[in-house]
């Protein structure tokens, strides 16, 4: 009987595959193997509530420990899979995965959710004490250990993670400098309209933002960093910025070790899958941050999405594929970033937009930016404006439109403007 499913990777996606298998009535064995010391937990609060001390390890758990037993899901933490051999279908041969410890796991069907790892800073001093990254609970604990005593925080990288940590540090009264190589913040995720607002908003709260900055080196010793030296370009050239913590948030890269081992097609380490979450080896499904998937709203091209939403929605499709339910992955991508008291919510993918419509008021820190291409709605950035966010998310969900010329009137609720595409 082909009834053992192994899931390698115990993050949001890996856990969701297991949950969906059970929800869909799969009665065979389900084993999740993860390389972290903990079972599946929420990562988003690590740069927010966990750092601020309002969430603890137990509150981060995605499911209570007994949940796995109740659902007869075997959750194995702390094992790194270093080798996988696939069985021959129909031959009765099982596949076998081997952990670094020597422990082995037999399986009939395989799902991999390798996740991603922070991009490392390739400069002098990047290995000094107090130069930190933030991805895992262990990373967050390392940050917290130095957090209380730290007076000066330098954040390298003005993306979601960096700005969330910067906001938390400002709230805690620290001196905070954000250093970004690009000419604006969150350049990969939002338009310059939203970027400019965020630069101003962080500055108003006392954070210094240095754009178009090149790093020369990080200074300090193996125990303690003392600061960051900028290179001889830009407004702050050659400046030395004191730091007790240097928090690096310059993006993540897909973890590709397993995909390489299995010979799966990948681009820059990201595993290529089809709309059913199948890899180039149809016996293996993959989901989550490490995956390059067809545009989830059916537009051209492939995307890699680093988000809870993508991990969950893709995992559901992957689980169904494993048990023979053919369901195409279609989902509105959405993201959020809580930076202090600023809640950014994004629905859709704005890439390729040719028109924006702004609603609300930047001055009151409650506004939204709608993105269009050829007159069709693509996405929204909503700042402290969940009503607009929800309206756009629903419109995208149902393939409806919100005409740009009408959306510009902020006095009209967006949800009253939603029209079906055929209309």
């Amino acid at each position, binding site marked *: 009987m082909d009834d053992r499913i192994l899931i390698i990777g115990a993050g949001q996606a890996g856990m969701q595959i297991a949950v969906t298998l059970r929800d869909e009535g799969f009665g065979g064995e389900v084993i999740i193997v993860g390389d972290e010391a903990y079972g599946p937990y929420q990562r988003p*609060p690590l740069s927010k509530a966990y750092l601020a001390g309002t969430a603890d390890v137990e*509150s981060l758990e995605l*499911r*209570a420990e007994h949940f796995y037993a109740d659902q007869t899901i075997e959750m194995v933490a702390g094992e790194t899979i270093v080798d996988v051999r696939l069985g021959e279908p129909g031959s009765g041969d099982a596949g076998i995965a081997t952990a670094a410890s020597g422990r082995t796991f037999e399986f009939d069907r395989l799902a991999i959710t390798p996740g991603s790892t922070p991009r490392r800073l390739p400069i002098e001093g990047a290995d000094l004490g107090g130069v930190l990254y933030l991805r895992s609970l262990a990373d967050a604990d390392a940050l917290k250990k130095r957090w209380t005593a730290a007076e000066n925080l330098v954040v390298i990288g003005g993306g979601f993670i960096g700005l969330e940590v910067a906001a938390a540090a400002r709230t805690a009264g620290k001196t905070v400098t954000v250093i970004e190589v690009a000419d604006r913040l969150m350049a990969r995720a939002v338009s310059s309209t939203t970027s400019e607002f965020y630069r101003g908003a962080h500055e108003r709260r006392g954070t210094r933002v240095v754009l178009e900055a090149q790093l020369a080196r990080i200074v300090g010793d193996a125990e303690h960093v003392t600061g960051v030296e900028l290179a001889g370009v830009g407004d702050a050239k050659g400046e030395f910025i004191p730091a007790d913590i240097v928090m690096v948030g310059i993006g993540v890269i897909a973890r590709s070790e397993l995909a390489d081992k299995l010979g799966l097609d990948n681009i820059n380490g990201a595993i290529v899958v089809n709309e059913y979450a199948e890899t180039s080896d149809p016996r293996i499904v993959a989901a989550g941050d490490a995956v390059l998937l067809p545009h989830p709203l059916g537009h051209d091209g492939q995307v890699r999405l680093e988000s809870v939403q993508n991990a969950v929605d893709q995992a559901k499709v992957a689980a169904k594929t494993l048990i023979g339910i053919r369901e195409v992955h279609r989902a509105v991508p959405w993201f*959020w970033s*809580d930076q202090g008291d600023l809640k950014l*919510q994004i629905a859709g993918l704005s890439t390729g937009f040719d028109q924006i419509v702004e609603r609300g008021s930047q001055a009151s820190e409650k506004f939204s930016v709608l993105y269009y291409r050829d007159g069709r709605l693509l996405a929204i950035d909503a700042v402290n*404006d*969940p009503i607009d966010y929800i309206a756009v998310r*629903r419109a995208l969900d149902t393939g409806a439109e919100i005409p740009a010329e009408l959306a510009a009137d902020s006095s009209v609720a967006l949800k009253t403007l939603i029209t079906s595409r055929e209309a």
Partner: protein
Amino acid sequence: MPEITYFSPDGTQTTLDARDGDSVMETAVKNGVKGIVAECGGACACATCHVYVDEAFTDAVGEPGDLEDDMLDGTAAERLPNSRLSCQLKMNPALNGLTVHIAPKQI
């Protein structure tokens, strides 16, 4: 530990002991109660943990905050006077015995 009773849309009833300070949403999700989606994990970012609070507890749970109030206007199921996002309801001894009906549609 304060107790919560959930009525899921499929008719099942589940009573759980909540950890003091955990939300009504967290307690449900961690224990596998059906019907609460809660994709954002409690950041008040997705409006997929919509519940109707039993009227006996209206005063004890208080009023939704501004952000939650706005999000409630975007729930998939009908908003009623006793609608709340369960991620924003933190458990405490005064809420012992809380009963909520999970909204039939979350997404």
